């Protein structure tokens, strides 16, 4: 009976949300340095929360306090409502995945055994642990042939994937990632980021991700927490809100330039599409001229027999006869009609002389054309939405001004 009850309790535990709560957490070192200062932060279950900030902001310290690599000086960190201080550190750590910058693989163990590290620690049968490790290698996109190699035989990017696989081996609900992709080159980094997003869509882990790279934070985070030097929290928000309304000058500066454009990455491209601005590649030039005349446009998107885009043609100065295929096709850009962002649509428009963006479906077939006018309308709407609520910094500025104004009134 006791065993059954225990198993039921475990089941209930894993079914529960895996919220991490920082409740007034401070880390003060013996020399008086304060790494983290009175941090209050709720890390929701099943999401990627990114802690980002310049060096010295306490982001890594905050992360390491979750699995007690560092103990907090004041305050509490709750994991599912349980104070981590009450859990034996090795036991706590085996239940939390951890990925670090240089992967931290064990050089003397084969890849498969590296991945199986935590299952071995948990006392799994060796065969079961290795089977699980092989599954995970596949899951993170690594060839099974790498399993019997040693870490030094792998590239940096591959090692980092092994690091992720190792962290996932015992299927922990929570994953801590400490600048895991910052030691690899930008191309590999982008791959690893995409891979993490894909994995997270399948796994729905509660992930705390530390980085100093705001672009990485904005790309990966469901929520982004910006910390400032001295270990205080500057702002927590979803990336779009943060780009639209940074809380103060520090966050604004940290977010960097192009905030407006970058924000469009989070706006879906729900654009009205026109179906009459396309012409099949095997059509006669006269048909194209007719279509252009009836729609009163000077550009048409050329579509091949499989419905894929081939380019734009200018309908001004068309030859009197011939095929569309013989005309000069001009460059074009596309965006995905389902799931594409307004930014990708704008980008597609900027790649074409027509200034219009070709919408394609998941198979790459043309779904229609978004015109310049519709793009302009959509971006104007985003701008209006962003401005609808005043930025917190502006509110603060206003209230600061209000005080002397009031005083002046009395005087």
């Amino acid at each position: 009976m006791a065993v059954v009850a225990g198993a039921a309790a475990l089941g209930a535990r894993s079914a529960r949300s895996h919220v991490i709560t920082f409740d007034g957490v401070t880390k003060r070192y013996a020399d008086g340095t304060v790494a983290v200062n009175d941090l209050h932060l709720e890390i929701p279950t099943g999401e990627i929360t990114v802690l980002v900030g310049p060096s010295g902001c306490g982001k890594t310290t905050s992360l390491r306090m979750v699995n007690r690599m560092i103990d907090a000086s004041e305050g509490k960190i709750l994991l599912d409502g349980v104070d981590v201080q009450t859990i034996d550190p090795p036991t706590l750590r085996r239940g939390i995945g951890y990925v670090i910058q240089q992967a931290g693989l064990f050089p003397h163990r084969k890849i498969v055994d590296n991945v199986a590290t935590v299952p071995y620690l948990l006392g799994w049968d060796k065969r079961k642990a290795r089977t699980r490790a092989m599954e995970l290698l596949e899951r993170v996109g690594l060839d099974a042939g790498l399993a019997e190699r040693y870490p030094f035989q792998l590239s940096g990017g591959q090692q980092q994937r092994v690091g992720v696989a190792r962290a996932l081996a015992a299927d922990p609900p929570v994953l801590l990632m400490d600048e895991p992709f910052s030691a690899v080159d930008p191309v590999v980094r982008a791959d690893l980021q995409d891979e993490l997003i894909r994995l997270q869509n399948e796994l729905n882990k509660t992930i705390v991700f530390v980085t100093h790279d705001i672009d990485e934070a904005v790309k990966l985070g469901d929520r982004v927490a910006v910390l400032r030097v001295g270990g205080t929290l500057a702002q927590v928000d979803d990336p779009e809100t943060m780009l639209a309304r940074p809380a103060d000058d520090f966050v604004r500066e940290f977010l960097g330039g192009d905030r407006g454009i970058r924000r469009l990455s989070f706006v879906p491209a729900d654009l009205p599409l026109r179906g009459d601005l396309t012409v099949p590649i095997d059509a006669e030039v006269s048909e194209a001229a007719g279509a252009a005349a009836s729609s009163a446009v000077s550009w048409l998107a050329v579509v091949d027999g499989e419905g894929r885009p081939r380019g734009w043609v200018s309908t001004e100065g068309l030859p009197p006869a011939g095929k569309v295929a013989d005309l000069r096709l001009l460059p074009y850009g596309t965006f995905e009609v389902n799931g594409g962002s307004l930014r990708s649509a704008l980008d597609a428009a900027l790649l074409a002389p027509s200034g219009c963006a070709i919408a394609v479906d998941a198979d790459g077939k043309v779904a229609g054309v978004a015109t310049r006018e519709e793009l302009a309308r959509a971006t104007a709407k985003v701008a209006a939405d962003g401005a609808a609520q005043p930025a917190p910094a502006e509110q603060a500025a206003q209230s600061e001004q209000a005080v002397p104004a009031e005083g002046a009134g009395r005087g």
Partner: protein
Amino acid sequence: MDEEPLIRWDWIGRNWPNIQSLLADHVVMAVLPVVFALLIALPLGLASVRWRWLYQPTVGVMNVVYSLPSLAVFIVLIPVTGLAERATVIVPLTFYALAVLIPAVVDGVASVPAHVRQSAVAMGFRPLRRLVSVELPIAVPVVLAGVRVATVSSISLVSVGALVGRGGLGYLFIDGWQRQFPTPIVVGIVLVVLLAVAADGLLVAAQRVLTPWSRARRAA
């Protein structure tokens, strides 16, 4: 009068059983100190890693011991361990090997990259298991490098013991010198060198087998 040849093969033939037993004695007196020293250096080295303040005094004492002339130590030990006893040679050589192996163990454990140690902690290793299954295996190449130096120097130092009556192949040097007869000296030198080369080769082979993962790293 015939010039005495460098080697008289008939002498070797006649004395072969005797040479063999000197060789065996030499191997025992050279290898045991390294084994004992390794058994002592592991806990001492690990303690020095754990308690940093221990390291400097330990190495300091070991270096002073190392600087003592071996012959002097052999002579001092005679009243304790006896004349022409193996122990008279083995005890000092153990101390010499320790002087090499304690820093080797400390450096070996220090050679574990910080991110590896950290990830072991973060995976949930307890300290003892982390030491045994992560830190010590990674320290093996550095420790073995120390064992190679200690072994070769031990093989060469055993000969000095001949002056206190127990020197393995070293006896051949004294014998040859006293009788102005070069053959035993040449045989002794050749065997000591061969022994050192063989022992070193064995250790290199052991390292290949024990640490297949470190080969490319050393080449890099």
